């Protein structure tokens, strides 16, 4: 397929995934923040501050007034601010621009769903949203819209190279963002003292699972027991949960192999293969504590290198 089209589909996949990630994180963070702000304000505050580490953005201004809930500035900045490169508004607009530039490579259903979701979001941005409940409403409907887009892709796209590049963008973005979320959240969680407030302690672990869209899948494996020594390996190594690092790396490996079509391993394939091997084939006990800062750092870096490698190989020809 055309390199330019592959490039646009890849970025469309990335931006759609990023939009979903930001939307989900805003909903989850707004939850924990309203749950804990009276109880342990610093937990609520740091939950919002973590967002800045996951989406390195300088676009979130101070609250409009001293009485406004902290959440408002973050919600407005990460949802509706068109100038913030990590807002849902920005990401979805870029996804749509990429889609528009390769419309002939998409199905009508995908373009329709994307267009509708974006227009609804634009309307919110134009009118503005006044309080956290209205943000929640709007975010929920954007979230649904994003799933409609992904569903339309799933159901109508032909499984050709275009599909693979779109999915590749989605998988890479997901792994990258998961690693950043873990990197931002785990140190605080590891330092937290369970005995101080057991309920609050578990709320934070539950929130981590929700932030990674994995709570229900985790419960299916381990029930309601939220032990850190179970949660971390689950998020890293579960073979079936679509947001575990292992699942993501296997998806990327598979997509890269199919794109290469049985030819010699490409640079991106070698990078991802090594990371996947290190994640899956190390000692169990090491794996249990494997989410240390150095390893997560390596995941983040490898994703960056893999992106550069496949750009050079497929998009700049």
């Amino acid at each position, binding site marked *: *397929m*055309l*390199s*330019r*089209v*592959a490039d646009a589909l890849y970025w469309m996949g990335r931006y759609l995934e990023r939009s979903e990630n930001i939307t989900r994180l805003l909903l989850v963070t707004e939850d924990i923040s309203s749950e804990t702000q009276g109880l342990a304000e610093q937990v609520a505050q740091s939950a919002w501050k973590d967002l800045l580490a996951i989406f390195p953005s300088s676009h979130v201004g101070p609250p409009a007034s001293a009485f406004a809930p902290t959440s408002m500035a973050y919600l407005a900045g990460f949802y509706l601010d068109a100038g913030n490169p990590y807002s849902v508004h920005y990401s979805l607009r870029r996804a749509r*621009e990429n889609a*528009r*530039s*390769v*419309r*002939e*490579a998409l199905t*009508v259903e995908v*373009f*329709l769903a994307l*267009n*509708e979701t974006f*227009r609804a979001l634009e309307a919110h941005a134009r009118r503005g949203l006044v309080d956290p409940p209205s943000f929640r409403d709007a975010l929920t409907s954007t979230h649904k819209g994003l799933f409609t887009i992904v569903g339309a892709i799933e159901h109508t796209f032909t499984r050709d*190279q275009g599909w693979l*590049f779109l999915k590749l963008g989605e998988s890479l973005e997901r792994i990258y963002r998961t690693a950043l979320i873990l990197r931002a959240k785990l140190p605080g969680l590891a330092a937290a003292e369970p005995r101080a407030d057991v309920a609050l302690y578990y709320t934070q672990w539950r929130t981590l699972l929700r932030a990674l869209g994995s709570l229900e899948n985790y419960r299916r494996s381990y029930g309601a027991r939220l032990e850190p020594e179970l949660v971390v390996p689950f998020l890293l190594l579960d073979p079936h949960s679509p947001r575990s690092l292992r699942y993501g790396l296997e998806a990327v490996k598979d997509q890269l192999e199919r*794109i290469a079509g049985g030819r010699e391993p490409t640079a991106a394939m070698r990078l991802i293969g090594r990371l996947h091997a290190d994640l899956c084939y190390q000692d169990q006990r090491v794996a249990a504590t494997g989410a240390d800062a150095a390893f997560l750092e390596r995941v983040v870096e490898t994703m960056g290198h893999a992106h550069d490698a496949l750009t050079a190989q*497929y998009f700049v*020809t």
Partner: protein
Amino acid sequence: MKWVPETTAYDEAFDRSAAPRSHYRPLVSTLESFTLTEIARRERLQKISLVDQGITFTVYGEKDGLERIFPFDFVPRIIPAREWERIEAGLIQRVTALNLFIADVYQDQKCLKDKVIPAELVLSRKEYKRELLRVTPPRQIYTHVVGTDIIRNDRGEFLILEDNCRCPSGVSYVLENRNLLHRVFPEFFTRYPVRSIRDYPRLLLDTLLWSASRASENPVAVVLTPGIHNSAYFEHSFLAREMGVFLVEGRDLIVEDSYLYMRTTDGRQRVDVIYRRVDEDFLDPLTFRRTSLLGVPGLMNVYREGNVAIANAPGAGVADDKAVYAYMPALIKYYLDQEPLLGQVPTYVGLRKDDFAYMRDHLASLVVKTTGDSGGYNMLMGPFATRKEIDAYAGQLKKAPGNYIAQPLVELSSHPTWVDGSFEPRRIDLRPFILYGETIRVLPGGLTRVALRPGSYVVNSSQGGGSKDTWVLAPRGS
């Protein structure tokens, strides 16, 4: 239901006694059966459908965002079978002659030697590409896709107003308008044998592939677009999708050893036919405009070698020039030895001394156009202009008479159009699309554009026009 009658022009739907013409009777009675609320509801559906599908075009020089929807009026324009037969025959005749004319201009220039048309008029046009003299396109076809604008005067006669031989646009709206009307007003279709137009993308692809040099080896056709910011981008993308071919930009293409390739994720792949929706001046910076970033360096070389077909052929624009238009009846006679089947508007050519004198003295009653521009830009509508505007235009005119032509103001026919709760007469024209492949085929119907401002004659989408679905009825008993 309120119907406002037309007072001056030919009314497509009603006769002089304000009774519906026979082919409009079923439609009028169907429309009468709707309530205002119901129409309002359907209109909302229609609008949502347009916006959600992103059926948009770009208006140059307007600030409010890049995309706007092309206003659609739901009252269809109906052309009976017998009228269409005449139009179709006239168009086939005209396109045959246009193609012969272009071929002649780039080969032996017999028509110039025989003084059917002044040589200086043809050879001085910027659309005449001297570089292409004696370059023969595959199968001698220059005008693969022609969009000819037709109007109807106050006596109801169809007249050709303009030929578009370069990259006529609008066909995507023709197809989408039909889809839209089917969805929003399915009732309209129950009492009419409307000829289908769905086949167009297949016919277009056949037409393109017919020109390919490697006809037996799965030739590859692409649509070449200037990109997402072009006003007709929606259409480029629509046609590529409907034909199942790649939509490429200049930067996707590369020339190597006199062949054309596109850059793909699997390396380079050969291209045989370009359906170019890029102005020819931007096709190849080595041959035409040097600063063009849209083009493909070396493309014209590949074309000269016969290794790529370009539709429409570069240089074809010499035939849709507004001054050349004045000579079309003579050219039809010259090449085909036939009388033109369709009339056209009398035209004064600034280059001819007598014509110029007439133009100068009658500016206030003429429509004056420059020969290069399209889209209703830079024209003078004498009967509607102020004294000051006319004087300013006269100043321009004197400097380069050869660049201007003038025509009497022709009353465009009018058609009932839904405006704020009643059916009002609005001026319309018609752009049928003609494909020149193994045979010449005319898409039954075409784009009916409508001037949405009361009394306005300007139907261009860039100047506040809208469009209608256009029905050609199947002959009785077929």
